[in-house]
């Protein structure tokens, strides 16, 4: 997913720095508290299966959106018009779809077997360490891209707040995130996410109300845009219908394969609390995404009516609005919210990556790590450093790495996990074939497109093609090997699948 690639304007003023320091102080306090409560690998990776409903919901909203919702998203609306809404509109169905398709079964698998990771669930479903290992590899590859992109975004935002330079911003942000990730694991992550998610929601609602008021209401904003650029407010914006609908497909179906969201189902203290989880999470996402829509359309209107100068780059939409239209305190709050979003995403991915390295890959090779908590902490440090180094040194490649993360998770995990946990006819061979297809096709197509070996026609993306192919391969191979289907499911897993 596109994040923040270009430098943002410097906002290093006393009010902004003050809010930023207050924000980091709260992060440190939460982390110290969480570190004292992290004693086992289960505490470290899944918060001991003990997180309450509201905390889990807010944390899940926080990790779902990342900095894209605050910077890249409004910029994309500014550049492509209403089409960019097709990235976030699937939120109307994805949370409840995830609850029906995955939440109950994964939470019950956690209850029955003490599972901790997404590959754990795949391994248990197919009784296959190989499938667990291969899905772990896919997650690790995707995480490297996501982490590097978010680390760069973190550096850009911290530089905008404190004026320390992007390089130092990366290492400062990564150090803070790493400190609480290593000390408090996912427990620190969750409660920092609660704080960060609340901050993001408050900032989003305030900015949305402010820009609507400043623009004279949504109707007035629309009138301004329609007078000069009516295509902007057509349903497909500046893109083709195929491209806009393709966004919807990839971001709706692909949501079922995003490990940062899916593995949170393990953490809920009481499975019966799932009842209200989709409703609360959907409402939370709507609040956080108000800024995405509000800033995107209002900046377009403000540029058209001369209130703002034309933007040098689409990513400048939110900063330009904050610097020129909103009060400084609100701008400071939003920038802390953006830093919060990127740190929240980084923490979640660090934790998932460490679990793959210390838990899933050893299992795939028939081994178990002796002290998963200690090794988990060590892996956390290594992954964070690798991501920060990549973010600092790979230039334009970082954008490329970030783009395929979502698609890679979707194409490798949706068939084997989301369909497989709900269809007894799925086979181990089908799962392995679909994961391998998703991994190879995504990497091959994204790499070819990046190096301009070929250009996709309008409306088609590597993520979409890989997702469709891996689904079809999954069904076809499972059909061909169906004689091995039901007998390969353990009784407890079968019970959970039938519930």
């Amino acid at each position, binding site marked *: 997913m596109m994040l923040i690639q270009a430098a943002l304007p410097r906002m290093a003023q006393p009010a902004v720095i003050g809010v930023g320091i207050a924000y980091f102080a709260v992060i440190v306090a939460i982390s110290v508290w969480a570190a004292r409560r992290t004693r086992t690998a289960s505490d470290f990776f899944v918060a001991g299966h003990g997180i309450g409903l509201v905390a889990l919901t807010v944390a899940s909203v926080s990790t779902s959106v990342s900095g894209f919702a605050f910077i890249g998203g409004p910029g994309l609306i500014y550049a492509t018009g209403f089409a960019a809404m097709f990235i976030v509109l699937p939120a109307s169905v994805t949370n409840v779809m995830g609850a029906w398709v995955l939440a109950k079964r994964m939470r019950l698998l956690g209850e029955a077997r003490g599972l901790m990771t997404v590959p754990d669930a795949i391994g248990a479903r197919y009784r296959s360490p190989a499938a667990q290992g291969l899905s772990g590899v896919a997650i690790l590859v995707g995480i490297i891209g996501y982490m590097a992109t978010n680390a760069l975004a973190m550096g850009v935002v911290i530089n905008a707040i404190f004026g320390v330079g992007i390089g130092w911003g990366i290492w400062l942000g990564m150090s803070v995130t790493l400190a609480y990730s290593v000390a408090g694991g996912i427990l620190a992550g969750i409660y920092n996410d609660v704080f960060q998610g609340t901050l993001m929601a408050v900032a989003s609602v305030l900015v949305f109300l402010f820009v609507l008021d400043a623009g004279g209401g949504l109707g007035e904003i629309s009138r301004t845009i329609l007078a000069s650029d009516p295509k902007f407010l057509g349903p497909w914006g500046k893109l083709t219908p195929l491209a806009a609908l393709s966004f919807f497909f990839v971001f709706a179906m692909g949501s079922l394969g995003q490990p940062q969201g899916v593995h949170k189902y393990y953490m809920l203290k009481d499975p019966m609390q799932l009842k209200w989880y989709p409703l609360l999470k959907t409402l939370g996402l709507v609040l956080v995404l108000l800024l995405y829509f509000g800033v995107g359309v209002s900046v377009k209107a403000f540029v058209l009516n001369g209130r703002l100068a034309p933007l040098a780059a689409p990513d400048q939409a939110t900063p330009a609005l904050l610097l020129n239209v909103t009060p400084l305190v609100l701008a400071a709050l939003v920038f802390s919210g953006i830093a919060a979003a990127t740190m929240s995403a980084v923490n979640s991915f660090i934790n998932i990556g460490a679990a793959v390295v210390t838990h899933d890959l050893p299992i795939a090779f028939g081994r178990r790590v002796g002290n998963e908590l200690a090794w988990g902490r060590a892996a956390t440090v290594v992954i964070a450093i690798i991501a920060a180094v990549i973010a600092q040194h790979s230039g334009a490649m970082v954008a490329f790495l970030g783009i395929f993360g979502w698609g890679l998770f979707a194409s490798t995990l949706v068939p084997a996990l989301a369909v497989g946990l709900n269809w*007894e006819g799925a086979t181990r061979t089908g799962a392995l074939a679909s994961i391998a297809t998703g991994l190879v096709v995504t990497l091959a197509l994204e790499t070819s497109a990046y190096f301009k070996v070929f250009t996709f026609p309008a409306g088609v993306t590597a993520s979409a093609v890989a997702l469709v192919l891996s689904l079809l391969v999954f069904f076809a191979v499972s059909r061909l090997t169906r004689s091995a289907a039901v007998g390969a499911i353990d009784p407890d897993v079968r019970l959970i699948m039938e519930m």
Partner: protein
Amino acid sequence: MSTTVDEHVRGLHLEHAVAAPEAYSETRTKRVARVALIIATCAIAVAYGSAFLPAGAPAWAPWLLALGIPGALGGIMVLGASRGRGGIGRLAWPFAFVIITLAAGFSVALALPASESASSDLWLGLPLRAAVILYGVGLLPIVVLPVAYALTFDTQTLTAADVERVRQLGNARKELAQ
């Protein structure tokens, strides 16, 4: 190992969970959902494939996505919500509503002429086609689906007895492991 766990499962009166695997057959609801998901995925694949034609994507290609996306999402939701041999019960109504809402919303946006202009009528602040997408596709399902999930949770999704049975099974596995 598996046989031993089977015995424990039987001891916990969970026989249906280990009903002879060879006797397994897909329920009608699950079969319909799976076939819908496969057909919808094929339709989406054809739409993408058509974009590689020399003349570009034909006019019918977006229609395959407009109908394929609701079909695929509906299919996987039904697959996930099906419970044992009981199907989806009352959830059939909210599922049908959302599938129709998504398909209708996309179809209206595709079918209506591109007539947005400074003199367009606005619907809740947006021109008609954008309003249909934002409020119809983006907001209507929020009013229906999560509420339907919560209202049917105790009967259709998970009961305290389910959780207890799974906990007993988990304990049985732990005892075996020790």
